[in-house]
């Protein structure tokens, strides 16, 4: 319940965030084209093929025949279109969710959890720590080192206190195979 309050608060905060964008501060005319005789061709219309926000949502919760449709549904319409499917599939994955009152460690029951997931946007805080989940902060971004799969496994299989189905709720791969950089561009050099 506390967590629901937190998430509601986050949504309200988002709703009250003003658009402080001032294009003049960021739009530079000095494109890097000193050696180019003319600007490249940027004309035309571009149509959507894929979209991603939170990790693994389409992969895990969308039924196989609907995955392309999920990628072509704008986020503001995803909840209405996919929450019910997500709930069915969540309860298929983790049958305990079908029990009345059953919740995950965020205090979300099957309907509420899938309602959150079905609108596939990544919530990002502009006020501090940005993490998928670090034990304290929930859904304030996604950092490179976040163990998002274990977090999702725990939320799917781990029950109210992360103790249920221990053999399924942690893949025990807790970090990347190369260290990340502390400075831009942050991602490690390729193999």
């Amino acid at each position, binding site marked *: 319940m506390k967590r629901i309050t937190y998430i509601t608060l986050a949504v309200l905060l*988002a709703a009250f965030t003003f658009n402080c964008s001032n294009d003049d501060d960021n739009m530079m005319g000095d494109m*890097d084209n000193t050696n180019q005789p003319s600007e490249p*061709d940027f004309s035309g219309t571009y149509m959507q093929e*894929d979209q991603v926000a939170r990790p693994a949502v389409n992969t895990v919760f969308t039924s196989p025949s609907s995955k*392309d449709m999920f990628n072509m549904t704008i986020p503001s319409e995803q909840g209405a279109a996919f929450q019910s499917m997500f709930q069915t599939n969540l309860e298929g994955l983790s049958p305990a969710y079908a029990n009345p009152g059953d919740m995950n460690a965020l205090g979300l029951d099957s309907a509420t959890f899938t309602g959150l997931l079905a609108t596939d946007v990544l919530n990002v805080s502009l006020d501090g720590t940005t993490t998928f989940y670090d034990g304290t902060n929930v859904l304030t971004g996604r*950092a*490179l080192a976040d163990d998002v799969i274990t977090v999702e496994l725990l939320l799917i299989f781990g029950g109210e206190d992360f103790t249920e189905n221990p053999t399924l709720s942690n893949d025990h791969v807790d970090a990347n*195979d190369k260290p990340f950089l502390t400075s831009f*561009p942050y991602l490690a050099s390729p193999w």
Partner: protein
Amino acid sequence: MKKTKWILGIGLLAVAGFFLVAADHIDAPAVQGGSSDITDFYAFQGENTNNIVFAANVMGLLSPTATADAMFDESVLIEFNIDNTGDNVEDLVIQAIPRDGKMYFFGPASPGTTGLSSTILTNNMLGSVDISAYGSAAMTNSYNGAMMFAGPRDDPFFMDFAQYSEIIAGNASGFNDPGSDTFAGTNVLSVVVEVPKSSVGGSGTINTWVETKRKQ
């Protein structure tokens, strides 16, 4: 107990159906393995805490030998979407598109129209950066506090997907401890852009996602 096992078995069968490949790698038939297939999206506070970083990866599971020849597709626009009014509709976008060895960035700026169709915001060019070559140092560029990168990187995603397959095949009842990162040693093509927080809303929570869009 028997029933518990049976239910668990059904659950694992369901896992087999849903966990095709982790994160968003090869998530859907229309895009899988192609130049518009996004693998992962990240958004986090920059080293300079006044900045926010957006990173998107495409073309996952590149072996080192395949990485040098992997290229961004000039017909595919990568578009970061930012909703800062809480309605899950983009108020701002940051666009990235390659042309002749450079990645060009536009925004953050209001899109002409929201939704599935986009045009490139040529009046709002942020800048460009040489696409980094495999085996060379990362090329980065910065303009007025914004930073840009495009090129091959180690896939930052990690998961024991192989053990999932073993569980699914009935050869294992759970994960190993320690597990083994199936994505170790594989690369992706990355686009990373860092902008001042003030350019995307300043404070509070924003809702973000990334799209690939193909020129018609």
